[in-house]
């Protein structure tokens, strides 16, 4: 099947700036919703805000009003614990009211602690247990190829789940079947619950491992909008191999006391005061983006 023929890379500088500012707004809303929820993960969602913004506001062919539209691009999430970034981005993209973000992790909410398709339209999979989402994305891409569909399947996943055996089972399968309609985006933030990935279970060389498995491997700065967009464009334009984008991100991006600190993997700001400090830093970041720094 030939790759899809459209250029994502055609985006203006003001267009990029707009996405960067939106990503920062999404970071602010992530922290607000986590503080209200009283539990949940901070670091990963902040680190992935740029990528989710790029996906929902530039890359994906999707329609918030037609969540089961057959020709939509599929975005799987494998590390379900970063659901807050997906929820906030979806709300801003028009899937549900931004006000509903307050219900995160509450009884009766559509915004479950880990995302579930039986509760929220617009998700492609239920996730939490690591390794399952990336494998399901592979299965969906395979089915799309069988049917000659032209839509693309993306999966956002964590670096920690490269420790799961199933990830490499699925990686072998995707390469064997030349799933060029599939892109995995790995959040290479180097942290997991118990500490730094290279202490817990060394993952490097990630690039070489995927290359050895027969994948098209791209490595980017996961906070550089143009890098993100160009990499997805290249992934969609590739023949004969699935693409993996190793996105180097800063966990806790934008909040100095959260950045690169494993202890912020799985907790929210503890109160309004801590939230206030974090939001202040994000407003500084906003100023820098506006100034083009």
């Amino acid at each position: 099947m030939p790759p899809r023929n459209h250029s994502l890379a055609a985006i203006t500088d003001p267009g990029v700036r707009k996405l960067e500012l939106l990503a920062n707004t999404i970071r602010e809303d992530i922290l607000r919703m986590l503080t209200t929820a009283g539990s949940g993960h901070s670091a990963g969602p902040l680190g992935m805000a740029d990528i989710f913004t790029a996906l929902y506001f530039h890359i994906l062919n999707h329609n918030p009003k037609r969540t089961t539209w057959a020709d939509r691009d599929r975005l799987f999430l494998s590390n379900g614990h970063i659901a807050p970034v997906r929820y906030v981005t979806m709300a801003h993209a028009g899937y549900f009211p931004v006000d509903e973000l307050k219900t995160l992790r509450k009884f009766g909410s559509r915004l479950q602690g880990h995302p579930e398709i039986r509760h929220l339209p617009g998700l492609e999979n239920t996730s939490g247990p690591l390794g399952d989402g990336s494998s399901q994305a592979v299965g969906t891409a395979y089915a799309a190829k069988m049917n000659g569909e032209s839509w693309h399947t993306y999966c956002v996943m964590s670096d920690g789940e490269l420790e799961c055996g199933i990830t490499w089972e699925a990686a072998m399968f995707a390469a064997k079947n030349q799933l060029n309609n599939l892109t995995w985006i790995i959040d290479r933030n180097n942290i997991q619950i118990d500490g730094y990935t290279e202490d817990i279970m060394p993952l490097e060389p990630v690039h070489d491992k995927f290359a050895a498995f027969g994948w098209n491997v791209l490595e980017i700065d996961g906070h550089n909008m143009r890098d993100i967009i160009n990499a997805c464009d290249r992934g969609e334009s590739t023949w004969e191999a699935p693409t993996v984008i190793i996105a180097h991100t800063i966990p806790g991006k934008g909040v100095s006391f959260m950045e690169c600190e494993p202890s912020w993997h799985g907790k929210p700001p503890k109160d309004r005061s801590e939230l206030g400090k974090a939001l202040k830093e994000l407003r500084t970041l906003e100023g820098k983006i506006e100034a083009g720094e």
Partner: protein
Amino acid sequence: MLIRDLFSKHIPTEPTRNGFGRGLVIAGQKNENVVALCADLSESTRVLDFKNAFPKRFIQMGVAEQSLAAIASGMALAGKVPFIASYAAFSPGRNWEQIRTTACLQNINLKIVGAHAGISVGPDGATHQMTEDIALMRVLPNMTVLCPCDSIEAEKATIAAAEIDGPVYIRLGREATPVFTTARSPFEIGKAQILTKGTDVAIIGCGPLVYEALKAARDLEKAGIVARVINCASIKPLDSKTIIDAAKTCGAIVTVEEAQIAGGMGSAICELLAEHFPVPIVRIGMQDEFGQSGTPAELLEHYRMTAAWIVKAVKKVMKMK
């Protein structure tokens, strides 16, 4: 409803997996979305028939049971009806979490086929004799659990599994076992079949051991005990009405399965009756232990699952009435 010469020495035999192989081809003919995935066991699970009929709809996974389940679920999300086949010891033995999250929690069309279940796998020994699969699958919300009694019923169960929405587990055996139902025998998910009418005791079985239950009933009749033999192929959903009726009429029950009695079909019946109509029950099955190498006949005898042992269990349970 059953074949005419039920206890003939020349009763035809065939493994239940063969019926699955045929049923899968028919399901594939009926629905072009049916696909089959196999973890390096396409001949012995009988998926080969489907591969030959629909080569483009057969997917070879290699020895990778976790992704077997999760990748198939991804295909189901895209509209396919995937059947995944391996030995029960590996699927659902090795991929229970993937089945729980991707098939059951998402409530999608994944059909799991566990071949070589039970101790009658024989010489391969305990590693390959899956006896915990019924318990593992039965506990999952949204899951349907089927254990057909012969190859004809396995064919029907496979076709039925393809036609219902949601995850299904089908348990199959390796050995050639008596084919005692016919094309006209009823099969319905959620229904048990009363094979012999009796009121003294009920023998409720699943899988090929149902034939041993029929032999036991024949032998008991000589002693003046008339047993109601029930084929409980649909372990979940369970046919509550037929089972409660049997408890009320017969007042004592023996359950028969080639699986751990903890969590198995017998457990399901105990749970149902403890809440609705408690009667004495004796469960035949694996008594909290693992199997070993041997011929299927040796093992079924050693682990007390043959007709003679069912007769003993009936006599015991009737004294408890």
